[in-house]
């Protein structure tokens, strides 16, 4: 009896230690990415300037006068995030591949999914930082208030879905011959549910629709996030294995 309890105790301790080391491994990958980015600022500045340029292009392409703005703001925002996002995802994975960093990461005695979650969190951080800067600039340029808690929630949920699939697909596309052009081709058709739901929910918040109408796309975003994080978690091993 005594033996059993001590055995169980040691098992729980081991389990907490294992989960602790998993969190530590994830944090280490995130820390490494954020630190490298903080020193070089390559990715962040490219994504930010690129998104501002896209907004500029939309301004001329769609002639965003006051009437047009109301109906297309959500669409312009999400198209901007989607395009800037592929730039970031591509770069963040290409750095790992080019300098043999990925091999080093894979040699580390941690669960491979820790690497996946680490990359997802750091990519998400870059994307959110860019979005947090783009939103006020867009607000100022077009005099619409984009700082609504509901809209920020949609931005967060949409970005999670986009990045969770994007990180998995970027890990594949950087290992192919046509890597730079392949990621958007792989990514866009499978994240259409995210963009669709995000645009619908965002424009709902912007036009002041009833919350019951907005709930449906938000639920869809949550469902998509959960499904694809789970799938990516399960198959990531197959993507990085040598």
């Amino acid at each position, binding site marked *: 009896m005594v033996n059993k309890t001590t055995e169980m105790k040691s098992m729980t301790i081991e389990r907490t230690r294992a989960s602790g080391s998993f969190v530590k491994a994830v944090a280490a990958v995130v820390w490494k990415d954020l630190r490298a980015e903080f020193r070089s600022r390559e990715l962040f500045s490219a994504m930010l300037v690129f998104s501002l340029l896209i907004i500029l292009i939309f301004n001329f392409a769609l002639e965003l006068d006051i009437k047009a703005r109301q109906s297309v703001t959500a669409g312009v925002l999400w198209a901007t995030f989607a395009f800037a996002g592929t730039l970031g995802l591509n770069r963040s994975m290409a750095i790992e591949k080019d300098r043999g960093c990925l091999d080093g990461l894979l040699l580390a005695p941690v669960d491979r999914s820790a690497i996946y979650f680490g990359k997802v969190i750091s990519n998400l951080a870059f994307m959110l930082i860019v979005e947090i800067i783009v939103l006020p600039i867009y607000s100022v340029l077009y005099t619409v208030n984009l700082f609504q808690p509901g809209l920020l929630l949609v931005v967060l949920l949409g970005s999670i879905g986009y990045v969770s699939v994007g990180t998995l697909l970027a890990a594949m596309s950087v290992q192919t011959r046509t890597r730079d052009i392949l990621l958007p081709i792989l990514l866009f058709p499978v994240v259409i549910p995210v963009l669709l739901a995000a645009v619908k929910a965002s424009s709902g918040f912007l036009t002041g629709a009833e919350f019951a109408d907005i709930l449906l796309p938000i639920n*869809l975003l949550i469902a998509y996030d959960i499904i694809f994080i789970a799938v990516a978690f399960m198959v990531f091993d197959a993507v990085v*294995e040598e």
Partner: protein
Amino acid sequence: MESKPLALKILDTVSILLLGIATYLALVYAPTELVMGDVQRVFYFHIGTAWTALLGFILAAVFSVIYLVTKDLKWDRLQVAAIEVSLIFFLITIVLGSIWARPAWNTWWTWDPRLTTAAITELIYIAYFMLRQGIDDPEKRARFGAVYALVGGLSAPITFFAIRLFRTIHPVVISGSNAAAQGSFHMTPRMLTAFFFALFAFTVIFIDLFWNRIRLGDLQEKVEQLKLKVTI
């Protein structure tokens, strides 16, 4: 080189015969629909190809899971075969649907859930082949292909339900009713015969093409191995 197995030869012949009979049933035997006229006859092949294409895509997602678990390249060849045949069948479905939609809906294309999902599905599986083309190592190609086919196979139905949040005008002929649908009709017994025969014929044709494509994949594999031997 081994010759084609006899069963496959027989299946080839049966497929051609079935295609001929299905064409006869659709074009001659089935009565002309009152409102839409002859263009409605497109429907029999439209559903036949759509059903088999979807079957192939679902099979491909199942093969993905089996491959990722077993890592046996045989399942990869089955997956490629299923997706390749389905991709062409689905393209036929879209083109036939477009031909029907021009007189029935007065437009070649609308952004209806089914049409949009069909277009996106085609793009997903074209991307699948572009991904495979960029990888030389057959084992890695199989792994990446399986992962992408799984992600795509999960995303396509979600896209469909997501777009369904909007209203649809696509008719649902087989079951259910949709007040907003345009161009729906009821089938007479003769139409039903032609319809079910087309479903059956296209299923057999799909199996035949699928089998032929698997055989081709096996032969390709052999050629690749022989080439390797020669270079060594």
